[in-house]
């Protein structure tokens, strides 16, 4: 974990955004946040010192599609037991609300975290951009079914996006999940979804984060 040196007043409380794939997106998103929300948001970009292990950390269950995949539960524990306490207790950043933002497998991870029932979701908001819903033969659709069978409330502000030019698999699964979630009428859920026009997979990330943050 790398922590950039920061200087923020301790007496203020902030909206803290945890950004997955920080290696790729932190720089660009931090400029947007400095421009648009200079006094409101602390952005925590989560990246890798050495080898990038997103295919392992953001996925569950294991799938032959990517080697050594399926360790999302360990990553959830890392967030809950190490990273969030480090930010809030060691860096002394008071938090008004926590947001998790991820793209692609990172977007899948946000949804997996939401619907798995082993760990309590520590985030108030989840921005899931272009989630890889095809993972393990659309495992997440079954997970949501399972969650729904034992829960009638979902306390989160959830924003899911897709680019209209991400292909058939991504877009049909996006429709399918949105329709499922809408049909559940979960209590306490604030749910919004959006398909961006003329947008491909790679270009949906920052666009979604920016829009997602603006609506929180």
């Amino acid at each position, binding site marked *: 974990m790398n922590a950039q040196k920061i200087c923020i007043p301790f007496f203020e409380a902030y909206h803290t955004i945890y950004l997955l794939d920080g290696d790729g997106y932190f720089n660009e998103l931090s400029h947007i946040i400095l421009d648009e929300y200079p006094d409101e948001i602390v952005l925590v970009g989560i990246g890798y010192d050495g080898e990038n292990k997103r295919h392992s950390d953001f996925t569950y269950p294991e799938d032959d599609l990517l080697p050594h995949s399926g360790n999302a539960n360990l990553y959830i524990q890392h967030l809950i037991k190490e990273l969030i306490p480090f930010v809030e207790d060691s860096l002394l950043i008071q938090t008004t609300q926590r947001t998790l933002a991820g793209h692609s497998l990172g977007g899948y991870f946000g949804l997996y975290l939401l619907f798995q029932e082993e760990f309590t979701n520590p985030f108030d908001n989840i921005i899931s951009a272009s989630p890889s819903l095809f993972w393990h033969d659309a495992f997440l*659709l079954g997970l949501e079914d399972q969650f729904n069978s034992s829960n009638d409330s979902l306390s989160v502000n959830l924003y899911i996006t897709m680019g209209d030019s991400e292909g058939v698999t991504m*877009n049909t699964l996006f429709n399918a999940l949105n329709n499922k979630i809408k049909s559940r009428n979960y209590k306490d859920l604030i749910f919004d979804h959006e398909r961006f026009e003329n947008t491909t997979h790679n270009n949906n990330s*920052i666009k979604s984060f920016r829009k997602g943050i603006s609506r929180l």
Partner: protein
Amino acid sequence: MYKNYILTILFLTGLIGITKGQTTEKEFWTNSRIELSGTYDALNHSVGFMAKGKKELFNTRKFRGFAGFALQYSYQNETDKALNQGLIGYNNDFGIYAVFDLEHAYFKSKKFFTGLEPFIGVTVLNSNGTLNLPDYEISEQYTNTYTYLNYGVTSKIGYKFGGFQPNIFFVVPLKGLFDKGRNRVGGMDSRILVGACVSYTLKSTR
């Protein structure tokens, strides 16, 4: 989008003007080229082809210049790729471009050559398919069309055998170059292509 069309039409019209201006003593097609290429986009797992027609503009001791048109097609099959079953679908794109080819010939024989070929034009990207997952009571259909200005450069290396100039190449789109990287290159609307080409010179005088 209309701006893109107008820009492309202006380029293509200008191109016709340039090539017409070259017709004096030689026949119009003398030393012109026709090219057929197979292409592969490794990032998006799509295959395709390109066809080009190019008119010679100049030919010096080391450099040759051409201008012409290119048609490009790519196809990506999505059926049962990401999911074991339940999905039938594809993406394809069709593009028409103006191309400007600058070749540099090497050695005394001038048979070995490299080249840079800027292109600009319009691409139409289509997606179409259905998803049926009875276990989850899901049935979805998706269709989308995205038309956009496409531009970039092709880099190639080849060798001349008589009237044929086989070469291998890669195509790099330049989306993102002028917007501080906001547009990421390598997506379905900015394909990085590798390919092999067979080029033939019509009415060759050399």
